[in-house]
């Protein structure tokens, strides 16, 4: 073997050694590639796919469906509650208007008594008016109770202001009733007023007291009505979010 041949052989070996070193260095730099490739391989495997499919169809889909059903159920529940509350609030408003209708009847009765000349109103007629007044009083008490019971249907924060405004309405309504009662001599003849020498002055005083009571009832009624309407609008607005 001559020296030339030996040199070539050494060079070839050095070249192979260098390549091996380079390959080893590359493999040391990218160790995860080999492991990632392993997971990917496992995922690509039939067993992996089967397991993934089972997890999706057996756990994720039912969980998603259950959550959606729960949201839907909550929505439906809230909607049903709002629908019921709105119906009850409307019923309450109706009962409230019925209360005021009784005040209107009371005022009408007072007007009839005032407009009938004393000579034209005989004893049976006056007795009939008194009966009408007592019947109206009884209906008013019942109707007041019916409305008062329905205040619970309004949102909790609004209940106390409604009750306060309602109590403010009761006072002039009571005055109106007392005024008609006095006109009919229910509480003794003309007990609330100084009796004047001129009957026209007495009649005017009663008419003005009756009208004043009605004006105060009207104003207090408007106040309560606006509160009830405001609450209705707010609940309707909330229910609108479901549409």
């Amino acid at each position, binding site marked *: 073997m001559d020296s030339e041949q030996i040199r070539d052989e050494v060079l070839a070996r050095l070249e192979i050694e260098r390549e091996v070193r380079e390959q080893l260095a590359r493999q040391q730099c990218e160790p995860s590639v080999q492991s990632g490739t392993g997971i990917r391989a496992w995922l690509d495997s039939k067993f992996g796919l089967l397991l993934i499919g089972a997890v999706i169809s057996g756990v994720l889909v039912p969980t998603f469906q259950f959550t959606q059903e729960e949201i839907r159920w909550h929505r439906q529940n809230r909607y049903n509650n709002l629908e019921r509350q709105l119906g009850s609030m*409307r019923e309450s*408003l109706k009962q409230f208007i019925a209360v*005021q209708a009784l005040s209107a009847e009371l005022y009408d009765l007072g*007007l009839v008594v005032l407009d009938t000349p004393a000579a034209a109103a005989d004893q049976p007629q006056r007795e009939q008016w008194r009966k009408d007044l007592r019947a109206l009083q009884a209906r008013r008490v019942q109707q007041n109770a019916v409305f008062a019971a329905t205040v619970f249907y309004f949102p909790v924060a609004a209940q106390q202001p409604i009750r306060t405004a309602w109590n403010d309405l009761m006072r002039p309504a009571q005055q109106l009733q007392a005024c008609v009662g006095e006109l009919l001599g229910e509480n003794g003849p003309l007990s609330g007023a100084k009796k004047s020498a001129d009957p026209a002055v007495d009649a*005017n005083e009663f008419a003005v007291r009756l009208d004043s009571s009605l004006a105060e009832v009207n104003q207090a009624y408007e106040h309560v009505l606006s509160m009830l309407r405001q609450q209705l609008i707010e609940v309707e607005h909330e229910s609108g979010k479901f549409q």
Partner: protein
Amino acid sequence: MKAGNSSKAALALGVSILLCLVPGSVPADVGGGKGYPATPWRMAGPRNVQEIEKAKAVAAQYQTLSMSPDTASGDGSDVLRLRRVSLRVEQPRADDGVGYALVGKSASGETVTLSFSEIESFVVTSRKAATLILSVTVWPDISPQQLLDRQPTYQQLSAGYRRTVALEVSTRSADGRPLVFAEKGEFGATLPLEKLAAGTPGNFYEEHPHMTHPLRFWWAIPSVSNDPEYPYRMIPAASRGEAPPAPVVVKLADR
């Protein structure tokens, strides 16, 4: 027989149509009163000037002031209605009085007192540090004696008897506390005079004519209130034909 039946049917139809038409021509009954005029003189007019003067003093305590403090244009979008309005200090003490008049200085420097019962409206024309310049419309500008002597109708009273006064009023009381327009009652609304911007209008006759208090109208003697044009009437609120709010259909979008 057939002809007889058809003529009977035609007659019945005619009667039905007539019955349907007849109530339409009758004035509607509002179902809660005859709409008597709102006046302190409902069944008997005033017998002397003193009675009118007394009624005028009482009327000052029953006025309703409508104001739009946030909108100087006064477009009515947010009207504050102060019933049985008074002028008082913001946080009154037990011994503090309540006023029912605007007191201020006229352009000539003279002190002028205008009772709420003789003010129709006012506008804040400008404001200074502690005063407001108001242009006040006085109506009805008629004395109790003139009212009794002239016996005007509502239309006559409405068309005339009006004058405008420029008034400089203080926004604070003598002891420096802020003055407010206040509604009667423990929880009544208040409106500080200091909050009134230039251009803010105030009106004493903006309330619904069926919602007013009869004691307001000291000037509505029989010659005024018997005028068919007199608008202030006593009608129960529930029978004014206001329909309750329409039912709202609530439904889920996915129902």
